[in-house]
């Protein structure tokens, strides 16, 4: 069995044990490294395993503990970073040939915050190239396999980060979510995945895909671990102009509060009535989740976000438009792959042709077109208007509800190669997750049982801007309900 979430304890347990001296950071790291060397060959969660660096960091933590120093709330906890987050002096590739070998001279804010809290980075996780995809099959360095079934995809684009946690390589990892890239792989891999409020977690050092949509969030095996890590990575960062001024929200404060009296809206459009292509077992688990919350005392009613059906179309204009600009800098001039050419323009062209994969090129072309003179208003402009409408509809819904509920992904993990031939089929994976990226509001996926194929299914809890406290509160209740059912 490859799936073994929290094989050596949750992050909270490990940090307690390491801080209290019950175990050492070095022992924890060795356990996880051993598991990685045993199963990584089958799963390919990593672009890079940082075994030596992790051992050194663990030894340093242990030394500080024996010296009686304060070591932080994630002391000795192995963590995995998606390979689109910069790590000083450590190769950061975005799973792209164009960045192969590039070592950033600085670290992402989230990486610094985790290590400052005592966490130990054990590797850089595979992803769909530049986070563009829903299966981690678009990696230049080969696909990642789902630990529950190696023939199945782990989801994407943060498939490596999700698979690493599901396989027990680390209790905690970070992914980035532009259209569902944390929540969908969390659903496929049977773990918790969070897309925080836009601006609550710094994007400094995250290699941009769609800058107005990108948000970093944690993967974990428990809601508590997700909350613990969120409190560490969230909070204002003076290096990111879109960073919210507030400190991190105290999301662990209400995990045990229950849902008595909370108003939960079940999104009509995502429960089979409007958006097509959601599998019956997925819809069944989503209904079961609603029933479980009702049983726990929540007031559960249907609600409607009518424009959410246009979310996918709007997203596939806005995200590629921003990507076409964000990815212009990979031109062979300053870093990364350079293919020679007779002049600068042809060198740029040759480098980009050789360096980018097919999906990245497709989105650059779509985005370039969407912003072109004469088309900009019809495509990019209209998409932004849809976005405004979705925000208005969500805000209207949150006048009546504390949180909303929906399936995370239309299906369980699908077979590798199943959807690679048809980009539209692949894009449909994000139909339930995209509206939250467009609105900037938080959402998270919580495992809630399995499908007809025995593979995990997640349900999605959505909340208003900066509504993470109630979102985690409801997620914790679903976790208890799912545990009781299992």
């Amino acid at each position: 069995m490859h799936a073994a979430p929290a094989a050596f304890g949750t992050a909270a347990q490990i940090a307690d044990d390491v801080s209290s001296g019950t175990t050492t950071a070095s022992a924890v790291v060795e356990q996880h490294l051993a598991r990685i060397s045993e199963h990584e060959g089958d799963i390919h969660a990593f672009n890079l395993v940082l075994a030596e660096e992790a051992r050194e960091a663990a030894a340093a933590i242990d030394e500080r503990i024996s010296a009686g120093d304060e070591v932080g709330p994630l002391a000795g906890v192995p963590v995995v970073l998606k390979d689109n987050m910069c790590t000083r002096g450590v190769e950061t590739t975005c799973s792209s040939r164009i960045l192969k070998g590039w070592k950033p001279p600085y670290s992402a804010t989230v990486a610094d915050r985790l290590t400052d809290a005592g966490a130990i980075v054990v590797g850089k996780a595979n992803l769909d190239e530049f986070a563009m995809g829903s299966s981690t099959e678009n990696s230049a360095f080969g696909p990642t396999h789902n630990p529950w079934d190696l023939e199945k995809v782990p989801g994407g684009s943060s498939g490596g980060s999700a698979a690493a946690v599901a396989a027990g390589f680390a209790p905690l990892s970070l992914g980035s979510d532009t259209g569902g890239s944390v929540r969908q792989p969390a659903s496929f891999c049977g773990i918790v995945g969070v897309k925080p409020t836009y601006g609550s977690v710094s994007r400094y050092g995250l290699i941009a895909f769609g800058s107005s949509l990108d948000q970093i969030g944690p993967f974990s095996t428990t809601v508590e671990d997700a909350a613990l890590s969120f409190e560490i990575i969230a909070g204002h960062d003076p290096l990111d102009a879109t960073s919210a001024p507030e400190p991190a929200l105290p999301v662990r404060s209400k995990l045990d509060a229950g849902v008595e009296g909370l108003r939960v809206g079940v999104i009509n459009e995502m429960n089979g009535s409007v958006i097509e292509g959601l599998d019956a077992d997925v819809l069944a688990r989503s209904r079961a989740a609603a029933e479980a919350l009702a049983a726990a005392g929540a007031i559960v009613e249907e609600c409607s976000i009518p424009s959410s059906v246009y979310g996918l179309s709007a997203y596939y204009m806005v995200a590629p438009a921003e990507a076409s600009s964000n990815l212009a800098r990979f031109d062979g001039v300053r870093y990364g792959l350079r293919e020679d050419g007779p002049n600068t323009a042809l060198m740029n062209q040759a480098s980009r042709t050789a360096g980018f994969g097919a999906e990245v090129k497709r989105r650059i072309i779509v985005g370039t077109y969407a912003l072109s003179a004469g088309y900009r208003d019809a495509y990019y402009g209209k998409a932004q208007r849809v976005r405004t409408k979705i925000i208005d509809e969500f805000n209207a819904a949150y006048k009546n509800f504390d949180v909303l509920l929906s399936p995370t992904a239309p299906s369980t993990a699908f077979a590798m190669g199943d959807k690679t031939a048809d980009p539209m089929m692949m894009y449909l994976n994000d139909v339930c997750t995209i509206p939250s990226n467009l609105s900037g509001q938080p959402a998270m996926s919580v495992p809630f049982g399995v499908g007809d194929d025995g593979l995990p299914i997640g349900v999605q809890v959505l909340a208003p801007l900066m509504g993470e406290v109630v979102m985690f509160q409801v997620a914790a209740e679903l976790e208890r309900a799912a545990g009781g059912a299992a």
Partner: protein
Amino acid sequence: MRHEPSLPDDWELVCGLEVHVELSTATKLFCGCANQFGSEPNTNVCPTCLGLPGSLPMVNESAVTDAMRLGRALNCTVLPSVFARKNYFYPDMPKDFQTTQYDQPTNDSGWLDIPTGERIGVERAHIEEDTGKTTHVGGDGRITSAQYSLIDYNRAGVPLVEVVSRPDIRTADEAKQYVSELRGILLALDVSDARMEEGSMRVDANVSIRPVGSDELRTRCEIKNINSLSSLGRAIAHEANRHLDLYTTGDAPVQETRHWDEESGRTRSGRRKEDSDDYRYFPEPDLTPLIPSADELDAIEAGLPVFPAEQRSRLAEAAGIEPTAASLIVDRGDADFALASIDAGADGARVVVHLDNNLADGIGKLTPASFAELVGMETGGALSATQTKDVLAEMVTSGQSAADIATARGFEAMDTSELDSMVDELIANHPDEWSRYCGDDEGDAKKMAGFFTGQIMKATKGQADGKVVAQLLNARK
């Protein structure tokens, strides 16, 4: 140098200017790197201004304040504004897009009054980042044929304000006055060095012509690579004549960018605009809109300095001269000194003459009080014009008082009775010259006046006052 004739009376110039002003902030627009000219290449750089993957911009607030102050100086409305990305590939632009402003600039619709009294409209003054600097090596020095190129990113991310005028400029001289006036405003605001030769102020001219009386806007050409005020005038005049030649031979200009070539005094064709780049502008998602508060705007308004136009009219009034005659002093930044000297009792006309003619290299150690003392000695007859000039030169370098220098040099005004007898003696010794002086031939009389004055000056070693000598000669006619 080629001489460019003026357009014939039935044609007129239609010209608008785009002026890029480098702000002299301590740091760059979006990062903390030093904004410094002349450092070793690629030393004032960081992940953000190198556009490294994952880096993000943070807005330099003092650059925004400087830009808003400039906007108010140009009578613009300061509005909530949004940064936008202008997308195109060029190796000296680290992100392959320029962060600028597009449909929501910081400063909208103002004007600039030039000394002739004309009002030139300002369409907008927006904030953007500068690019790096590329040196192409080999080939003809252009990117297309170079063997290799060297890039210095020190300038990448330096804050610029682009001031875009309306096509209200009708002569090459107005264009020069507009730029000169803008430069004066920038210096008064202390927001830029505004040196065209060093590139901290770069001027592109959009030039077209049309028959007088028409209000059409004909095909324009954008002239780049203009490195001085005099080149600006020549380039515009040349381009206008080139258009005239085309129209009068039944041809027409094409819309394009043209480069001014200083040596040949001509513009040569650059990039055609008809297949111009599509810059795919969209709002910069990494930055939030700039929304100035009422307090901020009030503080900007209250902190604006006195601008050149106002300085000219104040000085003109104080000195009793035409405002245009005050231009040189104002442009040199000496207006406050001139006004203070007049306040201290100096004769306004003499203050203007000395500043215009004898203090071109700066006022050095002069103070308004010491200068006023000197001018007082001159107008009171204690020093001749020549002596005043000598004393002034020494005051600039030594800082000593006029009286001390005059005493040390033995400058004392001759008394008139002494001069009287000298003049009489001179006339007696030169009867022929005297009769020519008194004759009808005005030119010859003038020559002889010079002769007599020169002789007296020689005899008195320059201590005599030329004006007094002239009066004495005239009285004996």
